[in-house]
């Protein structure tokens, strides 16, 4: 064989493989042709693992929206919020134009200029003046501008296992109403059943989140309202930590495992290892779809509040935000889509019924307690319309649904929320793993660190 022919073949082979490599690196091209002149937006459509019914439902809604708005093209895509990958997705351009982010992250995202300022588009909506102010506050950045539409709202409640209650000789229809009762019920459960009576999240920033919830329930605050002064070492937090310490070490009612965060505590609860824990009132959805909890053993109680100070519950939810890389036209289209797809069912009973029908078709839980985004009357109207579709054990949640409206909804600390939570994680972990932890010293130290953070900005 001639050398030069072999060389030619080898050269051709490598050029071909290089070409393949280069095309693999390339992204999708926009198809301009038929969509020129229209605004195209990609939207969060469904989560990984969602059923075909859910996917079809979103696409149907997208078609309906596009009919009403012929100059907008909506492409639903698969997406899930993940704090750790969000920034890189944004940088890499794989973020949809609009997506939902938790309340607790909204201010941080706004500060880092990762979501777009959509104040003018939100204020153009007909109901913009009717938002519940504390709910709208969660969708605002620290500069007071609006960064999205608040579309789901929940309050923190006390989830409890009815089966464990019965086994311990407690009445599952009378969940605890004070923190002393929580403590004694936890002890009863631990003594009779051997499972942890009460558990609280401690890691991945959820420790700080839950400690803040406990603080609010006992009447304290973690920061001054303007976010310039840290008050982590307040009496309510100290009282809460002391209670946790006593439950863990004197009563032995918190079990031996203390490393929990949002997902793992749900797992443990669904597996029947936990008697009571605090989390958002919407967690039942996850318990059913992800953890296969037994609906008969699930109960939701309103969070016990303390006697002194300005008590209340920590509120949470999702904000439908817009990517910082969106053009103004895309941002406007995104807000219109969010209004149509996510917000309408919160104020329009017909839209709520249509949404419930879709959920019913794909066997999703309907009726998990939420809180009003607008005023109570609007909320009630929607609830009444959807009631025939409810498939969650609402009477096992009556303590919450009856009592939550009497509780003040307090927003999370506004300044450096997640970083403060991370500092508090350490405090809670220490109290639960070291019997001789000095709570006062820990809180003083944490307050210094938190204050440094607040001063730095």
């Amino acid at each position, binding site marked *: 064989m001639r050398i*030069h022919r072999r*060389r030619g073949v*080898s*050269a051709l082979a*490598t050029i071909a*493989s*290089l070409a393949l*490599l280069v095309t693999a*690196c390339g992204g999708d091209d926009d198809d301009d042709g038929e969509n020129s002149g229209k605004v195209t937006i990609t939207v969060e459509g469904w989560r990984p693992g969602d059923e075909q019914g859910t996917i079809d439902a979103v696409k149907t809604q997208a078609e309906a929206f596009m009919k009403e708005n012929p100059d907008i093209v909506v492409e639903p895509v698969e997406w899930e919020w993940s*704090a*750790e*990958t*969000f*920034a*890189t997705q*944004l*940088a890499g351009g794989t973020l949809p134009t609009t997506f939902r982010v938790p309340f607790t*992250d909204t201010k*941080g*995202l706004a500060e*880092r*200029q*990762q979501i777009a300022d959509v104040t003018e588009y939100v204020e153009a909506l007909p109901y913009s003046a009717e938002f519940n102010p504390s709910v709208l506050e969660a969708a605002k950045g620290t500069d007071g501008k609006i960064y999205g539409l608040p579309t789901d709202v929940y309050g923190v409640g006390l989830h409890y296992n009815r089966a464990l209650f019965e086994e311990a000789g407690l009445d599952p229809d009378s969940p605890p109403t004070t923190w002393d009762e929580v403590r004694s019920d936890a002890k009863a459960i631990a003594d009779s059943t051997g499972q942890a009576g009460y558990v609280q999240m*401690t*890691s*991945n*920033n959820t420790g700080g989140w839950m400690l803040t919830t406990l603080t609010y329930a006992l009447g304290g605050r973690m920061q001054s309202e303007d976010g310039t002064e840290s008050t982590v070492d307040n009496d309510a937090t100290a009282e809460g930590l002391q209670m946790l310490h006593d439950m863990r070490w004197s009563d032995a009612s918190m*079990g*031996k*495992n*203390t*490393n929990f*965060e949002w997902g793992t505590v749900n797992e443990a609860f669904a597996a029947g290892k936990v008697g009571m824990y605090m989390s958002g009132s919407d967690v039942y959805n996850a318990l059913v779809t992800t953890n296969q909890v037994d609906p008969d053993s699930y109960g939701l109680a309103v969070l016990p509040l303390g006697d002194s100070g300005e008590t209340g519950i920590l509120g949470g939810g999702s904000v439908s935000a817009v990517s*910082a*890389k969106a053009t103004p036209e895309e941002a406007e289209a995104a807000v219109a889509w969010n209004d149509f797809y996510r917000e309408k069912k919160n104020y329009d009973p017909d839209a709520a019924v249509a949404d419930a029908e879709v959920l019913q078709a794909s066997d999703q839980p309907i009726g998990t307690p939420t809180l009003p985004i607008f005023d109570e009357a609007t909320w009630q109207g929607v609830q009444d319309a959807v009631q025939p579709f409810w498939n969650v054990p609402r009477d096992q949640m009556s303590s919450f649904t009856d009592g939550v409206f009497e509780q003040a909804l307090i927003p999370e600390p506004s300044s450096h929320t*997640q*970083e403060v939570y*991370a500092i508090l*994680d*350490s405090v809670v*972990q*220490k109290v*639960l*793993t*070291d019997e001789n932890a000095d709570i006062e010293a820990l809180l003083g130290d944490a307050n210094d660190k938190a204050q440094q953070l607040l001063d730095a900005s």
Partner: protein
Amino acid sequence: MTVTAPAPRPTRRRSLVDRLPRRLRNAVGPVVFLIPMLVVFGLFSWWPIVRSFIMSVQQTNLVTPAEFVGLDNFRAVLEDPLLGTAVQNTLWFAVLALVIGYPVPLALAVIMSDVRRARGLYALLAYLPVVIPPAVAVLLWKFFYDAEPTGVFNTILGWVGLGPVPWLEDPSWAMPALVMEATWAAAGGTVIIYLAALVTVRPELYDAAEVDGAGIWAKVWHVTLPQVRGIMLITLILQIIGTAQVFLEPYLFTDGGPDNATLTVLLLVYKYAFQNTTGGDYGKATALSLMLAAALAVLSLIYFRVTRRWSD
């Protein structure tokens, strides 16, 4: 015998390659095949390293243009109290891994090399943990390490009358627990390496030692170890560099807890970059990575200098 003149070379057009001097001409083939590897390494290894250098002197959120901040990131990292904790924990992990994890593969290999039959089976069993995906292994062991008396390990300890151990829940137990799993997962690979090295030890040395009246321990100490000294030095530095970069076990087992007792340097890098929820401090993360890389490079240099005399 006649000498025939070589057949006349057929004429052909000289291609571009043919016009190069011979040495270059011979290199064209290999270089052309190297290009894909160079491209892949360049894109995924070398360019990111260059980018880390750049990002470590910048403040960026990956979206808006980055601003140059000089050595601020390095200063911020050095002033972080968590850095001290992380370095201490990493050193503790490395020491524990040295004490627990370094002798185990060697001991296993020595024992296995003495076994007559089914040596292949033992090698397979030793290597099996290495084959299990690391994340799966960690999650499995996390389940075993349940601190309740009903946890798997606590139940087994209960059979011999030992109390339930808090494992991952207690700051003093957490790191040893991590090291045990890490040893189990990685020992197999090193066992195979040692087995290969042990095969090269000349049997006459063992016979000579036996003649001199050496028992098993003496044989191992005086014959086996000196002979595999070279390999042992290599695996030692590899282990040190590997344990200095431990991330998976602290991240999946305890996420740095309880109370930062298992926070290692690389986990701190991860937390700087990703855990402040919304795109954290890439500048600090890359600054710390570079400092770690520099420290390990210096360590390796010193190590090879010092051990040059000892290895063959």
